[in-house]
């Protein structure tokens, strides 16, 4: 039995714990051993067996005392962008190597309060800037389906760890697709909720008007359990937290999809979409039709514009957010310098990687005198038009479906010298991010090289339940979410 423990999802493990068939300590030990055996994937940046087992023992004590909350004793690992007191927090940057946060993020604290056991911190692109996880200062993550390929990014460690069954659940954050794209590339399920649903308190800031945390797991059923625990107002800690009550998403999974109107944006199926991805997505959409859903042709006319708009707005916000890394209050400080300005410049030159520097430069430029209106303000205006396009589309459909990314996961190093090529590959995830809409990825087939393909579902604001239900209904009728990477022991 212990041999297939890691194949169990959150809901299954929770049930076994509730029935006292197994203890939280046994589960934690099993995953800790598995993490060690698969350390070559590079998914984890920090582990601490003592801390993990102490949390597992505490969960067992709560179970022993008769407590039975849905996630009690189930393991989770957190993207290393969430501040935690029990593990280091680096955001994948040399700037924060070894940094210990004096406080916990709201999201990780919520999971700890439910009794989830933290297995460690997961690798990611530096400050969540990237689509391949190759921008981590602590090394790339390998895709469990093919170790020569990237896992996607920026939540690449999260996706790889869940796909390789090193953890049943992980947190991710999504600024322009950083949950959905790695979920797609690693064949798992992930959801970015509506902007403002999950607290950003204690999430190392990249682009504050876009950053949003969400869960990554193998099934929509598991994501629903995790998202229910993760969301809810955090009115005193996060001024952008939505004042809407937490929801039980698990209770919204059994509604069938008969009559569901699925909008198909023609701009998501243009010539840039690889034929293998298109084939998997098309078959999935016809399966939704077979389940009773209706496909409705729609248009999101500014899909392509979302690339420059996003890559103006996100770097602008990043250049502002990352000004806090000055070598004074925390993080790296250069050893040799002549004066204060020199200390700042050398500290930041040494602490930040190439992609982060590029984005700071772009951001500082588009915010500078004489360029603000032409770039930043113009981008914000088109951002409004993109959000309006979605509202127009949602008058014709209940959810929107399409590919997550134009291709399957590419080879390590293939695009690492070409930042613009990476930006272009974000085309299908950026529009929903700019609008602040919920979006998810669910495994829907395989493409070139046997690599997983994800279907993206986008919902209107606060419609996460509708997305998770549609995904769950598909997963009741398919087994892509249960497939495991071949060759992985």
């Amino acid at each position, binding site marked *: 039995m212990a041999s297939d423990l890691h194949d169990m999802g959150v809901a299954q493990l929770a049930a076994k714990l509730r029935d006292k068939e197994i203890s939280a300590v046994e589960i934690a030990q099993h995953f800790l051993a598995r993490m060690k055996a698969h350390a070559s994937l590079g998914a984890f940046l920090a582990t601490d067996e003592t801390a993990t087992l102490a949390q597992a023992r505490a969960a067992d004590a709560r179970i022993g005392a008769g407590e039975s909350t849905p996630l009690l004793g189930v393991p989770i690992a957190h993207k290393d962008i969430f501040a935690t007191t029990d593990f280091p927090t680096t955001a994948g940057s040399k700037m924060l190597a070894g940094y210990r946060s004096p406080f916990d993020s709201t999201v990780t604290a919520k999971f700890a309060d439910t009794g989830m056991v933290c297995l460690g911190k997961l690798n990611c692109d530096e400050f969540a800037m990237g689509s391949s996880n190759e921008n981590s200062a602590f090394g790339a993550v390998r895709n469990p389906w093919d170790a020569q390929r990237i896992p996607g990014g920026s939540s690449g460690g999260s996706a790889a760890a869940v796909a390789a069954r090193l953890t049943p659940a992980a947190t991710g954050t999504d600024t322009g697709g950083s949950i959905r794209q790695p979920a797609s590339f690693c064949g798992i399920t992930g959801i970015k909720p509506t902007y403002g649903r999950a607290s950003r308190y204690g999430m190392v800031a990249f682009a504050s008007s876009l950053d949003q945390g969400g869960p990554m797991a193998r099934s929509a059923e598991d994501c629903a359990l995790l998202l229910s625990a993760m969301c809810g107002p955090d009115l005193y800690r996060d001024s952008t937290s939505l004042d809407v009550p937490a929801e039980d998403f698990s209770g919204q999974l059994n509604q069938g999809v008969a009559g569901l109107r699925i909008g198909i944006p023609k701009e998501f199926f243009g010539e840039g979409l690889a034929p293998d991805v298109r084939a998997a997505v098309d078959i999935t959409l016809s399966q939704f039709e077979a389940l009773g859903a209706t496909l409705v042709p729609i248009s999101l006319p500014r899909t392509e514009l979302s690339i420059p708009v996003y890559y103006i707005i996100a770097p602008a916000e990043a*250049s502002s957010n990352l000004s806090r890394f000055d070598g004074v209050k925390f993080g790296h400080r250069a050893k040799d310098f002549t004066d204060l300005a020199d200390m700042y410049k050398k500290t930041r030159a040494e602490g930040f990687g190439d992609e982060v520097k590029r984005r700071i430069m772009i951001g*500082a430029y588009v915010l500078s005198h004489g360029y603000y209106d032409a770039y930043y303000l113009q981008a914000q205006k088109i951002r409004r038009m993109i959000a309006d396009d979605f509202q127009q589309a949602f008058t014709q459909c209940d959810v929107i479906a399409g590919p997550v990314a134009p291709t399957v996961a590419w080879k390590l190093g293939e695009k690492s010298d070409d930042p613009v090529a990476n930006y272009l590959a974000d085309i299908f995830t950026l529009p929903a991010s700019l*609008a602040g809409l919920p979006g998810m990825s669910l495994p829907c087939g395989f493409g070139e090289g046997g690599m997983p393909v994800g279907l993206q579902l986008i919902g209107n*604001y*606060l419609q996460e339940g509708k997305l998770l239900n549609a995904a769950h209904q598909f997963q009741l009728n398919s087994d892509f979410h249960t497939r495991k990477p071949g060759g992985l022991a």
Partner: protein
Amino acid sequence: MALTSSDIDRIANLARLQLQAAESARMLTQINGFFDIVEQMRAVDTTGIEPLAHPVMAVRDAVLSAQAGELRLRADIASEPNQREANQRSAPSVERGLFLVPKVIE
């Protein structure tokens, strides 16, 4: 409109980033490559469009009451305990509870 190497130097100074010569040259090429894809954005007619600085506004307009989507201000009351030691634990240089920086005023 292409950036020049003096633009790169100016922005790097604004951003407090020291760039090596080779790094500056690479940055120039890459940033100009990026601004090629930005051109299409500049051609869009946005007359009369209100900028969307933040999605909370869009969520409010679409589904929430105006009040629920307002950016909030909380009462100006100290709610956090003193965390000086915890907060300074990761500081590069601290003395007697103060952050140390290079001399600024002679």
